[in-house]
């Protein structure tokens, strides 16, 4: 793996810098006069940055104010919290901008990788290993689509890449209750640009990973009823589609192979998934 050079502009003192994050041919412009935030965004979206806005899909501003920071995007607010608390908030705002601008897509809480023109998605709540599996499979030759959000077309079994920089949890190497997984520290994984999938990809399979301490990696087929339940549950913009999202999830559940993956060791799980190639 190699470090990707981000298109980070050179800001002058107190000047406002702009970054352009691209998704599916449209750019979100982020403006900020906070150097640390600029660096955070440049790192978080390094594989999605482009030099200029061509087709705008929105604008997000994060600026210093008298008492702290002002954020203007889909919503607007004043924030006095320390800056490092606001990093995740800004990521959520950026995502919200894209979701809002592309309500025609079903945005799943899922990571994904590609091999041979087929995508394997990892869906489910946080703390079950989406980022871990996506990055470990990328080390095995699969190409990275996303680690946390998967935009799926409503009219085709196709997922679009959303290759924000993956951040996976650092396992302490000892017994850990599944509920504690979400509290682990994360490490940023820098992927070679060649390992990033750029084109929409047909969905070949969906996996619902579940971390279970002491469990050997095991894949089991999920019945369509359970698969549909989980897909609807993990649809982040259900309100945009409602009945259409229900139908779409049912279609996916019936036509795409869906698996449950229980595991305790990420590398074993990745090896097992790699054997699906």
């Amino acid at each position, binding site marked *: 793996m190699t470090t990707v050079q981000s298109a980070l502009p050179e800001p002058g003192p107190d000047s406002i810098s702009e970054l352009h994050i691209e998704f599916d041919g449209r750019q979100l412009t982020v403006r900020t006069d906070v150097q640390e935030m600029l660096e955070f965004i440049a790192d978080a979206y390094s594989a999605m940055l482009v030099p200029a806005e061509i087709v705008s899909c929105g604008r997000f501003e994060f600026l210093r104010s008298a008492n702290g920071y002002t954020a203007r995007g889909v919503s607007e607010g004043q924030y006095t919290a320390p800056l490092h608390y606001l990093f995740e908030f800004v990521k959520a705002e950026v995502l919200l901008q894209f979701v809002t601008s592309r309500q025609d897509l079903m945005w799943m809480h899922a990571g994904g990788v590609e091999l041979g023109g087929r995508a394997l998605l990892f869906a489910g709540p946080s703390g079950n290993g989406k980022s871990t599996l996506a990055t470990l499979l990328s080390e095995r030759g699969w190409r990275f689509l996303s680690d946390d959000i998967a935009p799926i077309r409503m009219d085709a079994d196709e997922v679009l890449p959303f290759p924000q920089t993956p951040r996976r949890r650092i396992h302490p190497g000892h017994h850990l209750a599944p509920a504690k997984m979400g509290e682990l520290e994360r490490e940023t994984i820098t992927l070679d640009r060649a390992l990033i999938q750029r084109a929409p990809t047909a969905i070949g399979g969906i996996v619902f990973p579940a971390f279970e301490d002491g469990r050997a990696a095991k894949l089991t087929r999920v019945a369509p*009823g359970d698969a549909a*339940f989980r897909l609807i549950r993990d649809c982040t913009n259900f309100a945009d589609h409602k009945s259409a999202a229900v139908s779409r999830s*049912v279609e996916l559940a019936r036509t795409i192979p869906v698996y449950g993956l229980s595991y305790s060791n990420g590398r074993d799980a990745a090896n097992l998934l790699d054997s699906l190639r």
Partner: protein
Amino acid sequence: MLSETDLVIALSRMPVRSEARKRVRQVLEQSIDWDAVKRLATRWQVEPTVFGNLGSEFATAIPTEVRSEAAMLEQLSRAHAVSRTLLLMELVDSLAGAGIPAIVLKGPAIAIIGYDDCSRRTFGDADLLLRRDDLIRGRDFLLARGYTAHFHPARERAMIAGQSALEFSDSRSSVELHWTLVSRHLRFNLRVEDLWSRSQLIQCVGSEMRVLSPEHLFLYLCAHGAKHEWSSFRWICDIAQLAARLTPSQAGKVMELAAEANAKRLLALALRLAQEVFGEEPSPFPSSAFGDRRDTAALVSLVSGRLIHGKVDKGLLPPRIAGIHRYMEPLAFWLRSRERIRDQIACAAEFIFVPAAGDNSRNQLQRVFRPIRLAANAVRRLASAS
């Protein structure tokens, strides 16, 4: 009526009726106990419609945190309904593959016909109508798939003869196999061959599902509700939803079927209950279908008192009499729901004399023992009550 109750009633319909919309807006301007709304929608099992309507139609009138929670509850309840439907469809398809056709009686059938979407109505047990000749094969099919029967094999023959449902469950679902719509002693007989010949195939989650005709379904739900003393708000909601989708011609057919089955009062009771809960609505039924108000007033008052106003202890019978047997109150309710004395007497007599599923049906003396046992228990309970 409490504003929270009012709100849940109005939002339980799909779509929200235009007259109710104004009322909802008025209620939303007041201080709302949102936990009470959530509890009531959950208790009444109308989460998909209540939370869906809140988020879709009144999003700007509710607090942000309520909006978020409503969206989540709608999403989960609809996911649950779809999941159950797919599970049921998989079973129905497998039964069909084994040469055992089945009619889906309620659950997703009501959801699709009455709410236009299988995810808009949750359901628990699956009720399947099989042909009588297929019942044993249906039982064997379920047992082979790992289901457990909830009846003693020795009682099976009597249960089938008595038109009782055969109940099964596995770790994930419960299934009831029927060959008629209700038990024989209830004296509500729609011709079984008509149920099949008029049944329809509808699209459900990507495959076809056989359901009762809208007319049979409507009348069946009238009987089913009365059988269970209309103890679920959702059943009344179903009646209102389905009525709104019937044409006058279909409503006329329902009335014909009700007349043939001597079940006009069952129909009238259901229509009046829907009217009591949801107010006057345009109806495909003529006023004659609603019957004489006096025939159903006590039952309507009892049901709405229990469901809407929380008068759960209210009953048709004095407590001492109701305490004689757990079935006294439901039986009294059912008898009051029937218009013919002949049916009332036959139903009561069958309850007293014909061995129930819990009796040893192989012993012919049960016809003698059962009334004696019931009478002895009644005397004992009356004595202990006094």
